[in-house]
């Protein structure tokens, strides 16, 4: 019961706000495209190669989203603020290769044919995880510890 009430409240608030926004701000805001108009190749994308200055929908320079090594290692900052732009090119299932609540296959297993991608847990991870986990346990908690623990429970109880 509590749950349905909660959803009703969130939905009502959302509806109210949308209505307000639309009356005040009728259709002036530029939206991001639902999907990126140009098909892109595999591998690193450099937005700046095809775009200049600013993404109107989010008021940030295109160059900030160049998929450099640093962008990929730090994509959490961009996803946390502008997840909508990620969805223009990425199906959610793309993210779910690494971000899941329940998964059987470690991400690196699925992409043996894509060594160029920065997929976590390459190689035999059973040995290596004991070291990585000790050195930087906090980094594991992004994906394990609240979810995706089923396998861990066998040894960590």
């Amino acid at each position, binding site marked *: 019961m509590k749950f349905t009430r909660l959803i009703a409240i969130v939905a009502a608030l959302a509806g109210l706000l949308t209505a307000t926004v639309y009356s005040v701000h009728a259709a002036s805001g530029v939206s991001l495209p*639902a999907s990126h108009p140009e098909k892109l190749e595999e591998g690193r994308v450099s937005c700046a190669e095809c775009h200049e200055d600013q993404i109107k929908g989010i*008021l940030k320079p295109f160059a900030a989203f160049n998929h450099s090594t640093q962008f990929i290692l730090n994509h959490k900052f961009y996803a946390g603020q502008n997840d909508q732009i990620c969805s223009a090119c990425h199906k959610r299932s793309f993210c779910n290769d690494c971000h899941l609540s329940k998964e059987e296959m470690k991400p690196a297993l699925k992409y*043996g044919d894509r060594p160029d991608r920065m997929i976590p847990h390459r190689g035999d991870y059973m*040995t290596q995880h004991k070291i990585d986990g000790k050195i930087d346990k906090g980094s594991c908690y992004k994906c394990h510890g609240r979810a995706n623990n089923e396998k*861990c429970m066998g040894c*960590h109880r």
Partner: protein
Amino acid sequence: MRRLTWYLGVMFCLMPTLALAAAEYSVDSATYLRFQQYAAPGFDKKFQAPATQYLTIDATKIGVDGLSLHFYGWGDAVMGSTLPNEDRYNGNLTYFYLDYRLPSNNAQVKAGRLFVFDGLANEQIDGVSFRTDLPLGLTLSAFGGAPSKLDYEKQTSVTIAGTPVKFYESGNKGDTIVGGRVSSRMAGILELGVSTLYEGGIRTVISNGALVSGNEGFIAPGSLRSYRQLVGGDIWLSPFKMVDLNGHTFYDLASSGIAENSYLLTVRPMEKLSVNGEYTDQSPKNYFAASNLPSLFNPTINDKMRRYGATVTLAATKAVELSVDYRRYNRENKGNSNRCGFDVRGTFVENKVRTGFSYHRVTGADVAPVASITPATRYNELRGYAMYDTHTYVAAFDGIAQLYNQNINGRKSAFELLTSLGYHVTPQLLVSGDISYGQNPDYNDEVKGLLKVVYNFTNEVKGAHK
């Protein structure tokens, strides 16, 4: 479990039918067949061949402008021996939601099982989410529902000094969740966000005043809470074109303390050169406050985890990128570790040939309270790969090795070599096979095989969904 298998079965049959009713849809299917020797500690090696099926379906143009339907899930079956406590059949409905985009202001409503990545939220929920841009450069988003339950839950019961102690682990999530974010933007210069989240009804330790032992000491009863409540701030600041600051601070209200600070400063003095500095800290008391695997992510230990470092990346030519990195990890009660090294990547012949090589040296802290089972944390890591993708054939080679300073289980190194060969039967259909061989302190000879069939079909005219 059985109910889920049923549910998945129905979905797998129903979804394609639903999708076909849509004017535009795409179906991605990936099937993996693994061949492996698998052993849990204390058990004999057994041969296993798990088959896993992933299915993604996206249907757009389903009658109403802006409305679309999205599905993703997997199911698997293990052939050969199963391990103790391992289910032969397994599966998960990862998401299944309706997405409605309003014509302007980036307004969007989603309902169903979905993922929320928004400010401090990184959640899988059964519920609704909503976002819109507001006047004056403001944006607003909100979500609510129930955290998707994990379908496994373990009730552990231990007897300590004659007192039975029960606690729930791993499947443990709350029954309601709400959250949202407000942000303010100045075109091209700044985005500032404030986000919050509340999850209630988490089943927690039921105990009679005893202590439960985890692998990092003891979890005191009452130290795990029945709710999770956080507030956070996030920033993007680019005062000049060549400087970017990204970061966030998350505060845990349930345990009254900063859970995480994470900041990244990027300076690009030249187009081809980028210099980064990063800093992250987390305190277990606050960061692990809502862990459902407290024996590993123990919120009661008094520790502080920090990491900071710098990376210099040089795009030497359009085809070659070189980066040099240094990172220091500091744990207040375990000591300092360092990791430094370099990475080279190359992309040649119109993206068809991709190669890379990296070397890292890790000098880990060896002052640990559980030294007897601590593996050596000083080692060199080498990795090299090369791949060739003609769009018809794909060949890839990958090698990774760790060379330890001390013996672990009588062995001074670990390595894995992998070869993969693939063939595009049609542009939509890829069949590939991987074979890997490795040796490491846990296994003498580890041979694994994998067969993969990927099918990506879309009738969309354009769009670049990956």
